[in-house]
């Protein structure tokens, strides 16, 4: 990773990203006192569908969207609250993000930060949630095509699963921490459908090797790995905003080549340690226990990230 900009650290930025609420992440990530929320909780735009299931609502429907400044420059930002309904996409929740991305498309180029913390679609509103994700994917690509850079930040307790994983794959770049996980099917779903021999969802080490932040960084599924602190996420987001390219046919061709090479090189590997060994990591089994700073050094040696193939 290139040299990070030295920015004044706001108080509390040694805060654990994992432990922080969506609101706290936004408040501490952005420049102090710069955040303005859109359709905040006082607007009480709750889900119209949870009542049918006797489920409690949250006034912001589990996502905080708005604008602020990062390192002095304007950004749009959305942060999912992973503890409300597992951070899952519902009708209102998804529409807030879709509207934000459409705005980025219209006023471009303004960076958008998406703080993912989601299990995917909210089942009680499954069709609305799925559609919201499809609309978000489209709006995101339209925003990028208009010059906006979209950075995804992943490190919360819900991870980035299901349709959230597809949205993440549409971003310009991703920042992930040890706690972050990115996948389409969750561990329990794989086990339920294919059996425990295929995937033991209670084997945490397996889950993290397969879907976790370190593996995603080494695989090239995420551009930056950071320590679990708001300050680290902030610095990584700032650095990536200075590095990522645009979006177009050329990007898609390079991504096709990147993904094809991955299948060719690792498609026969049974486990992440086999992939890491094939990549030249001398002690692959030791990777999960590596502290963040040592892992970051290792990752930078093993895999240079490209910024024009996502």
């Amino acid at each position, binding site marked *: 990773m290139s040299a990070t900009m030295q920015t004044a650290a706001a108080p509390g930025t040694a805060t654990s990203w994992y432990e922080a*609420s969506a609101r706290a992440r936004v408040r501490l990530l952005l420049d102090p006192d710069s955040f303005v929320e859109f359709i905040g*909780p*006082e607007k*009480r735009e709750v889900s119209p569908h949870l*009542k049918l299931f006797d489920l*409690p609502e*949250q*006034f912001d429907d589990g996502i905080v969207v708005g604008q602020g400044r990062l390192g002095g420059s304007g950004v749009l930002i959305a942060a999912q609250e992973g*503890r*409300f309904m597992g951070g899952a996409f519902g009708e209102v929740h998804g529409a807030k993000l879709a509207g934000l991305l459409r705005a980025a498309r219209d006023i471009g180029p303004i960076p958008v930060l998406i703080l993912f913390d989601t299990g995917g679609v909210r089942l009680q509103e499954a069709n609305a949630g799925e559609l919201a994700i499809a609309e978000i994917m489209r709006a995101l690509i339209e925003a990028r095509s208009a010059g906006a850079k979209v950075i995804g930040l992943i490190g919360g307790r819900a991870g980035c699963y299901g349709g959230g994983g597809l949205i993440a794959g549409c971003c310009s770049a991703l920042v992930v921490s040890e706690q972050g996980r990115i996948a389409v099917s969750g561990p329990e779903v794989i086990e339920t459908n294919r059996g425990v021999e295929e995937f033991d969802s209670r084997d945490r080490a397996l889950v993290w090797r397969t879907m976790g932040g370190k593996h995603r960084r080494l695989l090239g599924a995420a551009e930056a790995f950071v320590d679990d602190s708001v300050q680290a996420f902030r610095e990584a987001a700032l650095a990536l905003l200075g590095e990522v390219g645009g979006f177009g046919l050329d990007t898609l061709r390079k991504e096709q080549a990147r993904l094809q090479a991955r299948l060719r090189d690792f498609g026969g590997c049974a486990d992440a340690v086999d992939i890491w060994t094939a990549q030249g990591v001398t002690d692959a089994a030791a990777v999960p226990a590596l502290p963040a700073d040592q892992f970051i050094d290792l990752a930078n040696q093993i895999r240079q990230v490209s910024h024009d193939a996502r």
Partner: protein
Amino acid sequence: MEDLSLRRDARRPAGGARKMAIVGVVASGNLEVLAERVLPDHDCLVEIRTTATGFGDVWNAVVTDFVERYSPGGLRFSINDGGARPDTVSLRLAQAVRLMEGAQ
């Protein structure tokens, strides 16, 4: 789900000038409290939507205690509750009023 609306008189208005504050998250055993400075100086309103039905007496006791302790005149508190324990409710209400008074 149960809806409750509890009105109280407050001895004095809540301090500070902040118009709105939000604390907490709606999850099992947790709750969110939205505080708004929208009422006359000595009025207080606590509106609750909760998954745990039949605990009206407990809510009444918690709110009475809260209003007595903090005198949050002028404030409307709106709660979405995921089945939190009374002490968690008291904590969130206290957090909310402290934010409104500018103490944190």
